[in-house]
């Protein structure tokens, strides 16, 4: 059976599907009976989900400026 410390160390490996069959089972068996680890697992999941909502922004002026560089590169080449 894993300790809480091991859950902390292994959670990303678990999420990434890197644990063996038996490792995965031990991980789940621990988490299901351990409230602090259930809390920790939910916190890591909420963190990931929140990061996924962080909309990427790209300044429109930067985009235009780079497209302009493309246009002058094109003119120079032809």
């Amino acid at each position: 059976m894993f300790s809480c410390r091991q859950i902390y160390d292994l959670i990303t490996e678990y999420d990434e599907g890197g644990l063996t069959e038996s490792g995965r089972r031990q991980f789940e068996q621990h988490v299901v009976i351990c409230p602090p680890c259930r809390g920790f697992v939910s916190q890591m999941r909420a963190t990931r989900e929140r990061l996924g909502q962080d909309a990427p922004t790209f300044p429109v002026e930067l985009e235009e400026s780079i497209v302009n560089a493309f246009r002058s590169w094109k003119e120079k080449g032809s």
Partner: protein
Amino acid sequence: MEAAGVTRVLDAETTSRTTATHQPAPDRHTGPDERALLAMLRAGDEEAFRRLLAELGPVMLRVAGTYVRDKQVAAEIVQETWIAVLGGLDGFQGRSSLRNWIFTILGNCASRRAQSETRSAPVSSLQGAGDDELNRFFEANHPRWASCWTTINTRWDALPENALTTAEAQAAITEKLKALPPTQCAVITLRDLEGWSSEEVCTMLGLTPENQRVLLHRARLALRRAFEEVLDDERIAS
């Protein structure tokens, strides 16, 4: 000649545009293959160029932002990178993938600028989470609670919907990402903010899968902790 374009973007930061939906770069899987794309770019196909820019631009800006603290300098790095890409496009041999090549150039531009920029925070204070959380566990030889949590860890799936989208939480993300070691920041940015697969990130950054996973783990722990601090502050305040 390129300098004019670089200075123009200095004013760009005030108005930024949010892309419509958060999708992991669709062109990587469904767009034209590399060779076709390269031919289109060399032929001066502006639409193809715009698509590539839309795909890579935001993540390039984020990665550049991990090298330098100044947002405008990060924008300049992205601009410089694309100018270098265009300059090298005709001679590009295709030994690495086009996108990998672009990110290599980005890394070179960014390191050069990072060296000339005086960092305001000492590098030694920029370590990720991990070791500083050891006090959250009882000692391994504790008679009763060996390697158990010393903290309760409340569940976050029951939080009000907006608890992690406050201005404080947003600022915490930005600050924590900046404080991470650059490779950790690049990994979590690509994986969790941009939704790339681990294979894609390994290829892009030249990491082994194990390495990638360790960096991702440390970065996620650091961000979890940042959110925890925000939530604790709110709890104390209320």
